[in-house]
């Protein structure tokens, strides 16, 4: 018996397979070159950059602080919140930004614990999202408070009124949990940043040198310093995960511990967390696209493989979110409680019905139809669009949970619609604040953790198995 077999050339085999050097970890460059690339990215400011910074500053001053100041001076009547909808867009924004802030911890801490190597170049960008998202989110309870000058009443201190804050109130839990998370995430950004600001110190002059010298605290990279830093980063990575879970669980309990139909649900904690990570990871994909598009040399560090990995995470969290949402909906619907069923009906038949459909389209249809495709996941601008749509969907979810559900309460004679007014302007202001902080940070601190990238590249190598080279990783720790 004879067989006609055409031998396949080595080149043909490799054509069909991906080049291993497209992975950042397998495409090392000298540390000096990577340092220079990151420093150049920080030092390059174009005219467009300053225009964007100027516009964002203007929006922050006018839309956030100006509108907030106007509301303080005039009274809460300029906002759309009124009976029965006393929680409106301010609280929806609060939940949204706290959700966004979960991305940093997820990407940096959980992926660090599980040693997911693709995280290395973008951990800092994700961690910055946590801190800036928290900064934007933490303003909303104060904005919502109205009489913001009384905010200090929540802090426990002996006072003339002989009153301490009620620690049984979820609002007290919020204060303590968010403070804990804000402090932890800020320190968690700072610790791995120290070696990189020391690198920047060694390459800077003038005010930048003074700034980096102060931030680097005298870092040299001795064995003792590395031991202490690595141990602390590991402790943080493990400690911050339960803190992250607790924060959004507590935010969910702001709703779930009430008797309001639609809110009183035991699944709200994990449901909120799944949604937070879903929107946060999608926002990371958006930020990575912007970093690649606006900063020089970033195409070397942020590659298609990173969008691919984030796309898979987005798809997984879309499944998780949908599972929780269906679970919550199913139990409410099957339970047959009249008030709960009325809320479910309001999802589709109230003036905000279109928001419910928008939420399902953005959070389920878009990721499920597109993200299974590797080519889509590896196309940065498409990932930006998908990330944007998912965040629109997640904002819609928060809007449905807060004003829509509260406006359809147990008393039909107290039902009412909610239309945001000054809330819209303040929302634009807080989004601008988030973007402005990011724009400023991109020129002040190294957005790429160079030492972590180099550490990963040292650990990776190609090993030949038969006729094929495969990536291998050594355990350096």
């Amino acid at each position, binding site marked *: 018996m004879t067989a006609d077999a055409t031998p396949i050339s080595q080149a043909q085999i490799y054509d069909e397979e991906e080049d291993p050097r497209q992975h950042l970890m397998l495409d090392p460059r*000298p*540390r*000096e070159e990577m*340092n220079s690339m990151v420093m150049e990215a920080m030092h390059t400011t174009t005219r467009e950059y300053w225009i964007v910074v100027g516009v964002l500053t203007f929006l922050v001053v006018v839309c956030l602080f100006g509108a907030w100041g106007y509301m303080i001076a005039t009274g809460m009547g300029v906002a759309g919140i009124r009976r029965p909808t006393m929680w409106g867009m301010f609280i929806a924004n609060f939940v949204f930004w706290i959700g966004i802030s979960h991305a940093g911890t997820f990407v940096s801490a959980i992926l660090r614990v599980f040693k997911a190597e693709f995280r290395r170049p973008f951990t800092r960008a994700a961690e910055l999202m946590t801190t800036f998202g928290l900064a934007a989110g933490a303003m909303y309870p104060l904005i919502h408070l109205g009489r913001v000058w009384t905010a200090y009443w929540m802090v*426990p201190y002996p006072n003339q009124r*002989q*009153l*301490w804050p*009620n*620690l*049984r109130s979820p609002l*007290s*839990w919020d204060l*303590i*949990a968010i*403070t*804990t998370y804000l*402090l*932890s995430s800020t*320190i968690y950004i700072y*610790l791995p940043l120290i*070696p990189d600001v*020391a*690198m920047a*110190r*060694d*390459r800077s002059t003038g005010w930048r040198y003074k700034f980096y*010298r*102060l931030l*680097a*605290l*005298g*870092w*040299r*990279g*001795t*064995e*003792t*310093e*590395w*031991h*202490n*830093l*690595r*141990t*602390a980063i590991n*402790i*943080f990575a493990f*400690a*911050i995960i*339960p*803190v992250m879970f*607790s924060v959004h669980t*507590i935010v969910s309990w702001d709703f779930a511990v009430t008797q309001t139909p639609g809110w009183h649900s035991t699944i709200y904690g994990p449901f909120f967390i799944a949604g937070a990570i879903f929107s946060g990871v999608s926002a990371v994909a958006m930020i990575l696209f912007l970093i690649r598009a606006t900063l020089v040399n970033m195409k070397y560090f942020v590659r298609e493989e990173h969008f691919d990995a984030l796309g898979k995470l987005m798809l997984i969290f879309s499944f998780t979110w949908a599972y929780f949402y269906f679970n919550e909906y199913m139990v409410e619907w099957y339970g047959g409680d009249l008030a709960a069923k009325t809320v479910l009906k309001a999802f589709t038949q109230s003036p905000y019905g279109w928001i419910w459909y928008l939420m399902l389209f953005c959070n389920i249809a878009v990721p499920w139809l597109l993200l299974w495709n590797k080519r889509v996941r590896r196309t940065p601008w498409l990932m930006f669009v998908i990330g944007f749509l998912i965040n629109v969907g997640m904002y819609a979810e928060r809007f449905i949970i807060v004003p829509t559900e509260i406006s359809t309460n147990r008393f039909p004679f107290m039902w009412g619609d909610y239309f945001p007014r000054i809330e819209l302007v303040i929302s634009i202001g807080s989004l601008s604040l988030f973007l402005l902080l990011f724009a400023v940070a991109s020129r002040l601190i190294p957005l790429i953790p160079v*030492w972590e990238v*180099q*550490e990963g590249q*040292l650990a990776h190598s190609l090993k030949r198995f038969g006729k094929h080279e495969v990536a291998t990783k050594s355990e*350096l*720790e």
Partner: protein
Amino acid sequence: MAEEGRIHLALFKDVYPATMALDKLRELGIPDKDMTVVSGVPYSDRILGRPKYMTRVPRYSIVGFVGGFILSLLLNLGTPYLYPIHVGGQPLYSIPPTILLTFELSMLGLIIFTFLGVLFESDFPSLGPKIYHPEISNGKVAVVFDCPPEIHTRVHESLAALGAEWVHRTEAKQL
């Protein structure tokens, strides 16, 4: 390390010659405690062939956790004791919120003290003059050691033979 003026710094391109240099220094009679490796990326003790270093940072974390735990108990149990608010039918001390806030404050204590641990144990912030070479953050590996004057020529020759790009007696400079 001993007094300034006896401190030398040898700069290597890679970690391997640096580890060879450590062996050489030991061979020449310099004890482990009188040398250290300064690098731009972390290397484990095993890679460097150095005695295992035990950091005390976790102890700070434990102290912080316990401190936060105690503070939380004081806050949760002390508040209703000092300022009782009786709400019809409800107990004065509420266990679930106590658990919640105890967790948060314990973690807050742990996190703050871990950070303080890094600062104290690494002697940060210390902005004064230090022995350093800017090439370290470019990926070079430095071996800093305390060298008795009588052997320093021999040490320099040995380290240069191992591939040291730069080896000199060095003084602390402003970073």
